[in-house]
Structures are given as structure tokens and as C-alpha cells.
């Protein structure tokens, strides 16, 4: 039986914040080890999309527009049963990724700190922020500017989503959503 779709993971540019964007507000991130957070998606991730516009987002709520393929600028479809990984780069880590988000077994999603000089901070149960400093500092959060997201499917790079909002044309501002329903 089909389902109406959900967006269990949303990356918010401007800062580098990884939000649990599910419609079910009980769905949250769980800390596993230092520099690792985990959650589970009720359905497999079917696509990863860069939205045309990155609207302001400072709360834990789901955004209905995230599910709408008509407002996607770019979309990478994930074949069923494929493994996937998204490496997120910020302006200070152009050679190596700052964080990564990857599929695990049983529809799990793992958020990992890749840059050991940086750190992850739980702003709420639904929002994890990346800082370029080893401890949480305002400057460390503010200066973490998303530059690109490299999407790999079954270990091969499929595409790179640039951090851009067509309306503002400001580098670093973007919204990337992980969608758990096939686009019709």
C-alpha cells in the first residue's frame, strides 16, 4: 500500500543544520556516539532534492512544500534497495566533507561528524547544528556555510547539489530534502 510521503531529513543552508523534517513530530534524532546521531525512516528514502527556494526555517515543524516535486530545482532518485550517502561540504572543508548522512540497515539514517576539527550540537530533538569549532561557539555555527552536497548511490557519485536558492542567488543558502515517497 502506498503512503503520502514524508521528509525525514532536511538540510538547511545558511548555517549547516540537519533537521528531522518528518510529519510525525515524535520522530527525532538520537545520539549514538560522540559525533553521531541516528534516526529511522518509516519508508525507504526514494529521492534527495534541492528545493528552488530556501524559506526561513527556525523551528521543528514539518514543511508541506518539502514533499512537492514541483518546487524541486534538482532531484536525485534513489533506487529501491540501494544504499546511499550524502557528503556535506562547508566553505572551510572544501577538500573533505564536514558531515555525512548515510543509509544504514533497516531504513536507518546516520548523521556523522566527518571533520574532527568541528562539532555537532543538538539545538533541539529535531535539529542538529554543525560548528566549525570543536566546541559550540556562535562564530563556529555562524561561519559554517554549506557549499555543496555530494550524493552517492551504491558507492558511486551520482551528482552534486550546489547550495543555491534561485530567489536570493546567495551562495550557501539552500534547502535539501530527503524524501521517502517516490515522485509520481
Amino acid at each position, binding site marked *: 500500500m502506498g503512503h503520502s510521503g514524508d521528509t525525514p531529513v532536511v538540510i538547511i543552508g545558511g548555517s549547516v543544520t540537519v533537521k528531522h523534517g518528518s510529519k510525525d513530530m515524535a520522530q527525532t534524532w538520537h545520539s549514538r556516539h560522540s559525533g553521531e546521531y541516528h534516526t529511522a525512516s518509516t519508508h525507504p528514502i526514494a529521492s534527495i532534492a*534541492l528545493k*528552488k527556494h530556501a524559506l526561513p526555517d527556525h523551528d521543528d515543524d514539518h514543511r508541506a512544500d518539502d514533499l512537492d516535486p514541483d518546487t*524541486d*530545482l*534538482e*532531484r*536525485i*532518485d534513489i*533506487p529501491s534497495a540501494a544504499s546511499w550517502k550524502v557528503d556535506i561540504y562547508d566553505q572551510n572543508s572544501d577538500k573533505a566533507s564536514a558531515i555525512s548522512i548515510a543509509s544504514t540497515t533497516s531504513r536507518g539514517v546516520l548523521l556523522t561528524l566527518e571533520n574532527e576539527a568541528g562539532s555537532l550540537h543538538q539545538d533541539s530533538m529535531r535539529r542538529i547544528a554543525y560548528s566549525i569549532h570543536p566546541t559550540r561557539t556562535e562564530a563556529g555555527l555562524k561561519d559554517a556555510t554549506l557549499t555543496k552536497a555530494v550524493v552517492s548511490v*551504491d558507492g*558511486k*557519485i*551520482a*551528482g*552534486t*547539489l*550546489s547550495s*543555491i536558492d*534561485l530567489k536570493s*542567488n546567495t551562495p550557501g543558502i539552500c534547502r535539501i530534502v530527503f524524501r521517502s515517497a517516490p*515522485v509520481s
Partner: protein
Amino acid sequence: MTMTFEERKAVTQRLVLVGISTFILGTLAVVVFRALFAAAGSGDTPVIIIGGSLTFKAGDKSLAWTSDSATQYHVSPTYALAALVVKAKSAPDTGDAPVGDDSSTKTDRLVVDLSGATSWEIDEFTKASDASPVVAITSSPSGNNNINLILKDQNGFLCANKSMKRITYGLNQNCSDPQNTISFAKVSVSVNNQEIGILDCIDQNNNPGICRIVFRGN
């Protein structure tokens, strides 16, 4: 009240006529629908990039490339570009006729929406030229629907076939490079002068350099 034999005969004849008419109309509707669907399906992919080699095909049946110079060609579709798509599978394509399922969104692997773009540019890179593109495909600066194909590699060549449906990039004048010499790596997509993404040339067989990238019209 009961019908006479003549009345029953007349009713039966009318029912048979209605049945035959319905069958003919239904068959006609199916034929017309299929014809319209086939026309739409083959007519909205003005340009196709074929990996393996690096070949640029005028995908629409009614289109062919027009030479502007040795380093520039264009096609002139009657519709604007809506999207750039990497197909999930790269079907073999060595002729001028349409192949594969380019119009079907169900077999798309990666989609870039270009419908709102006032200008766009798709730069093609090979493994040997990772820093600068070998070819660029651009929207028309005149604002019409033309799609321009421009050679960027000063050491490279563009070679059109006789029908002007297929243009191949190569490193010698005949573009007769040995197989696997030209390894198509990726395209960079810019909209309104901003790079919005990079699409790697790969399909479900996971062989680098093998892909099918389709320009889809409105």
C-alpha cells in the same frame, strides 16, 4: 404488450448496429490516442548526450543540427527547455532514430528543473579535462528556443554525421578516436549564471562514463 416478430427483428438490428458503431468508435479512439501519445513521446527531447563516446544527438525526429562554424552548431526546437535529465539506464544508441524511453519520467535518475531559467549552460567534462569543459551547450542569447553546441577544447574537434543528427567530440579531425579514449565524466549545470549542480555520467550498470543525458522540452 408483446412485440411482433417484425418489431423484435427491428430492435435486434438496431442493437447490433449500436454495438458495431461503439466498437468502431472505440477502436478509432484508441488509434488516435496512440498516435497522439507517440507523437508527444518522440517530439520533446531536442538534445541527447550519449556517454561511452561523447556524442550529441538531435533527439527530436523533426530536428537536425545546423552548422554555424566548425566549432558551433545549433538546433531550433519550437518549444522551450523544461528539464535536464540523467536516465537510469543508458540504452545503446548508434543511429539517428529515437531509442529508449527518453520521454518517460519513470526512468529518470536525476532531474534538473530548467523551466524558470532565463539563461542556462550545460558544460561537458571528460576525465582528461577535469578542470575545464570540452563542450558547452547553452540557451540562446537571443531569447529564442535555439540550443547552441559550442566546442570549448581548443585541441578538440566536433564532427557531424551526414544526416546532421549526431555530432561527436573527438581529439582528431575525423573524431575517430579509439574506443574509450574519450571518457565522458560529468556535466556542470548553471542557471542564470549560477552553478546549481553537477551530474556525474553514470547509469545503473555503475560504469563510469556510461550515461544518457536528455534535454526535455515543455
